[in-house]
Each structure stands twice: as structure tokens, then as C-alpha cells.
């Protein structure tokens, strides 16, 4: 098992290296180059040349790349053009908000998705199944940001059941420990803070989790249907094994393989969707940083966020592969 993990970790290195090269090229292909982007409207050829020298952009390109690599490896992504603050510090502060939102959305999708998919497969062709399938098709077609706007208008504005935006009520003064609002409330035993933070999470998490939910339901249903047709399930049933045991030991375990991959693949959807959801709910996480960075073309910030997203994605897929190997011993050997 350890060898498998080490091998997969080593395999991720070239991917990350080429990614860094892509981001490097991306920065170089900006209109006017990085210097032009930094100077913005004030750019003149003389100023660009002077700044190029300061930034080391007059050196050979491969030396520049290695310096760039050295900087990002030591965590130096430069300073945001908007706040002047180091990008890493900005991201560090916003990251917990996005992780909290993303995990809650994923939890929502998994907790409802797997049972729903399983039920739909068990009642194949019946009303519940058809309704579920249609629901998933519609769910995928709804733009994330519209779902957010709709939920916010309906449940926050009209019915006033949930707060319309933000992570915490303004009247609450929480003690910050980790910047994960719910976790902070629990750790400091400020129960009202934790409850309030959870309350704020509901609508954004549903908005963000709906598409992953639809995807997980469909994969679970398809996967369970596949497994139900397998010979070993018929054998298990034929030898008189209890139905619940067949379901748990044979059907579910085997059906979970494609599902676990799919859950990992949702990270991309969640990261992308978070940008839109955070915009709607004024969440103040990475998505808000990104949206603001786009508006002002804050390239150091965009570069760091892009690289971070890719690294997270690669790492999550690594975790999925490892979980795959745990569920299915055959994977380890190959």
C-alpha cells in the first residue's frame, strides 16, 4: 500500500511541473507582459523596460523560469495589485471560507446522492426512479449562479428563513481560531456562533452542491444497476443470503468504486462553482478573491489562485486513487 502511495505521489510531480510551466507561459503572454500588467494604464515603453529589469525579465527565459519556480516553491507569489498585501496571506485568510463551503456542499451531495441513487436503482422504471432521473437531468441544466439567486430570493428575502449573505451575522462577535466559522464556534464552545455559521452555510451549500448531487445520483444509480446484473449477486441471492447482506457486502461495496472516483472529480466542479456561489452570497472566500481579481486584472493573485486550484485538484485525485486502492485490492497490484 505504501509503495502504491509513493508511486502515485511521484507520478504527480511531472504534472505539477508542467502546470507551473503553463502558468509561467500564461503570465508571459499577458498583454504587455507581466510588467505591462503590473503598470496597467500607466504603462509606457520606458517604464516597462525599467520594471522588466527590476523583475529580472531581461534575463534568459529558462533562468527566469527557474527563478519563478524557486519563488513559488518558497511560497512567494508576489503582492496583490489591489491590496498590496502578499497574495499568500490573502489566500490564507480566504481559504477556510471556501473549504468550509465546498466541504458542506460535497457532504450535502454525498449524503443525499448515494441513497437517492441507490433507491432509484432499486425501483428501476418505477415512478421514484423516473422522477429521480428527470430531476438529475434538470439539475445539471440549471446554472449554479441562477440557483443561488433563486434560493436567496425565495428563502432569504421572501420567506426570511435563512440569511441572504455572508458567513456570520454582523451582531455576532466570534473568536477566530482557525477561521473555519463552524469549527471556531465549536472549539470555543460558543454554540450560538456555530449555529449561526451553520445557518449561513445552508443556502450556499445547496446552491453549490446541487450539480454534484445530480452527478452522484446518476453514477450511483448506473453503478448499482450494473452490479445488480452481475453473476455474483445472483449467486449470493441464490444461495439464500439475506437480502440486506447481499446489498451491503456485495452490491454497495462494488458499486462504490465508480462513485468514489466521481466524488473526487466533483472537486473541479466545486472549485468552479464556488466562484459563482460566493459571488451571489457575498461569501468572502477564494471565489470572491478571484472575482475581484478578474475585475481588476490582478495577475499575481490570479496566478496563485490558478496554481492552487490545480494543485488541490491533483491532490484530491491522488486521494481518490488511494481510496480506490483501499476499496479494491486489485488496483494496488496493477
Amino acid at each position, binding site marked *: 500500500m505504501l509503495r502504491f502511495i509513493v508511486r502515485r505521489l511521484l507520478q504527480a510531480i511531472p504534472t505539477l511541473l508542467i502546470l507551473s510551466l503553463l502558468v509561467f507561459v500564461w503570465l508571459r503572454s499577458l498583454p504587455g507582459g507581466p510588467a505591462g500588467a503590473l503598470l496597467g494604464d500607466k504603462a509606457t515603453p520606458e517604464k516597462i523596460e525599467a520594471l522588466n529589469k527590476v523583475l529580472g525579465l531581461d534575463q534568459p527565459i529558462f533562468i527566469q523560469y527557474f527563478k519563478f519556480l524557486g519563488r513559488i516553491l518558497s511560497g512567494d507569489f508576489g503582492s496583490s495589485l489591489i491590496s498590496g498585501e502578499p497574495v499568500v496571506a490573502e489566500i490564507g485568510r480566504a481559504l477556510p471560507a471556501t473549504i468550509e463551503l465546498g466541504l458542506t456542499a460535497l457532504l450535502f451531495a454525498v449524503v443525499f446522492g448515494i441513497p437517492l441513487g441507490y433507491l432509484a436503482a432499486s425501483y428501476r422504471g418505477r415512478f421514484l426512479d423516473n422522477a429521480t432521473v428527470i430531476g438529475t437531468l434538470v439539475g445539471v441544466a440549471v*446554472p449554479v*449562479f441562477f440557483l443561488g*439567486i433563486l434560493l436567496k*430570493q425565495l428563502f432569504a*428575502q421572501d420567506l426570511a428563513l435563512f440569511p441572504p449573505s455572508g458567513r456570520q451575522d454582523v451582531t455576532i462577535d466570534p473568536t477566530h481560531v482557525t477561521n473555519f466559522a463552524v469549527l471556531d464556534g465549536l472549539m470555543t464552545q460558543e454554540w450560538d456562533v456555530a449555529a449561526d455559521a451553520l445557518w449561513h452555510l445552508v443556502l450556499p451549500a445547496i446552491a453549490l452542491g446541487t450539480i454534484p448531487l445530480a452527478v452522484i445520483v446518476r453514477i450511483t444509480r448506473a453503478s448499482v444497476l450494473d452490479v445488480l446484473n452481475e453473476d455474483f449477486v445472483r449467486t449470493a441471492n441464490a444461495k439464500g443470503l439475506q437480502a440486506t447482506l447481499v446489498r451491503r457486502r456485495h452490491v454497495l461495496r462494488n458499486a462504490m468504486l465508480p462513485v468514489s472516483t466521481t466524488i473526487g472529480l466533483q472537486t473541479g466542479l466545486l472549485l*468552479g462553482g464556488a466562484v459563482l456561489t460566493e459571488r451571489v452570497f457575498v461569501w468572502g472566500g477564494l471565489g470572491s478573491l*478571484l472575482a475581484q481579481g*478578474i475585475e481588476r486584472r490582478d495577475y499575481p493573485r490570479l496566478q496563485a489562485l490558478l496554481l492552487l486550484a490545480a494543485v488541490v485538484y*491533483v491532490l484530491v485525485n491522488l486521494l481518490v486513487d488511494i481510496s480506490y486502492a483501499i476499496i479494491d485490492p486489485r488496483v494496488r497490484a496493477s
Partner: protein
Amino acid sequence: MTSLLKRKQQRVDALAESAGTSLAADAVRRMLRSPVALIGAFLVLLFLVLAIIAPFIAPKDPYQRYPELLEDLRPDFIPGPMPGFLLGGDELGRDFFSRLLVGAQQSLIVGVGATLIGLVLGMLIGGAAGAFGGWVDSWLMRFTDIMLSIPSLLLAISIAALASRGSQTTVIIAVAVTTVPIFARLLRGAMLAQRHSDHVLAATALGVRRRTVVFRHMLPNSLGPVIVQSTLTLATAIIEAASLSFLGLGDPDPSRAEWGLMLGNSQRYIDVKPELAFYPAIAIIIVALGFTLLGESLREALDPKNRR
């Protein structure tokens, strides 16, 4: 009614049988029977027709401001149609219905443009990987893996952010790039699966040139999943383009009638006029649903497992 439907089905069945049961004919027959496919096809057709004839059937000039429509924004307005304006006006007093129609055209251009570019580039990469195999395959696939490792919306955002000023073209390119690795992987996988299949081995053994084997035998048999994916991609491309506009990465020209932009702009007026957000959203959902239904039923129809 049911007997009529049955007769129709029987006629279609007979037609399919008389034409032999090629996979394509079989698929068409199954599509005609499936209500999901028919609904999807209907929605897609409706969208296509409306998008193409939009400028001719728009009742008003979509870019003209009508002062009488602006009164809608008063706090005590009564929602609903006004004489001459089916859906009322937008925040600048322009005819909303005409703008929705013209927006269909914008979505069609962006969706088809992005999908076509992605399809062509992806098929070039995937086709080369599938045809040559070996190191060409492993390098090209490593490249697509890296593209896939960046979440598609974020990739689109970073490409669109490269342009100092957004435009329809940057949106098309940004969305197209995200679809390239998907098409490439799909075609490559389908072609690799055939490398050792009997008909390819037979052709090679007969001394048929590799080019002929690839273009006459491997490629045509690999197109099924690509066609399915193109249909599904049209849906995601339209949603993704709307998301980019919503984030302010599209064409900043406020007069442009684009569903995502219309939705984004409507947010400020959502308490006064929620339908400004509602109509473009419904339009996006209907179109995306149409392509998804069509694509999914195509996938099922083309799946050899479902052949009888």
C-alpha cells in the same frame, strides 16, 4: 391515440428493418421511440429555429430604449405584459422579449462556436494519439491530463482574463479550450479500443495502408461517443459562457443581449423585477436541458449493450 402511436411505431420499426439493422438505423429507431429523445430534439429544434430567425421575428428593436417601459421600475409597478411589449422592459427600458430572442442567437453562436473549435482541436489531438499510439500517444495524453487537472470553469476564467477587454471571441475561445481534452481523450479511447479488434487486424493483415485503416475503419467507428459528447458539450458550453458573462468576463458592451449578462445585470433589480432574472435563466435551462436530453438519449441509443 395509443393505437395511432402504436401504428406509427410499427411503421417506424418496419422502416428500420427494411433498411437493415445498422447501428445508425437501429439508433434512429430507438430515438424515435423514446419520449426523452423526442422532447430533447423538440427543445433543441425550437432553440435553433428561434435563434436563427430571431432578428426577423423580434417584435421590437432589442437595442432601442422605450421611455414608457422605464416606468416599470417604479416601486408600485404592476408586473406583466404591457401593450406592445410581451414581457415588459429591462432596467434600461428595452423590450425584454426581443432581447431574449436575440440572446438565443448569441448563445447559439457561442455554444456552437466553442463546441466546434473544441471538437476539431480535440479530434486532431485524440486522432493523432489513437492512430500513432506509442510515445505520441503518451505525450499527447499527458498534455490533456494536465489540461483536465485545471477545473474547467477556472481554466476558462484564466483564458478569458488574458484579454484586457472581454469579447464574444474570448468567451468562445475560453470555453472551447476547456472542451479540447475531453474530446481528445474520448476519441483516443474509442480508437485504441479498436486497434486490436478483428476488423482492424483483418484490414492490416490484408496489407491495407495505415492511413486507410485509420480513416476508413477506425475513425468512423469511433465517432459515436464523440457525437454524443458534442451534444452534451453544447449544453455545458452555453452554461459556461453565461457564467463568464455573469462574472464580467464577457463582452462589456451593455447593449449586447446575452443571457448570462442579462441575468447578472438583473441582480440589482431582483426585488423590484425578479422576472428579469427569471426569463433568461429559464431560457438557459430549457436550452441546456434540450441538449442534455438529446445527448443522453443518443448515448443510450448508440450503446451496443441496448441493441436487441
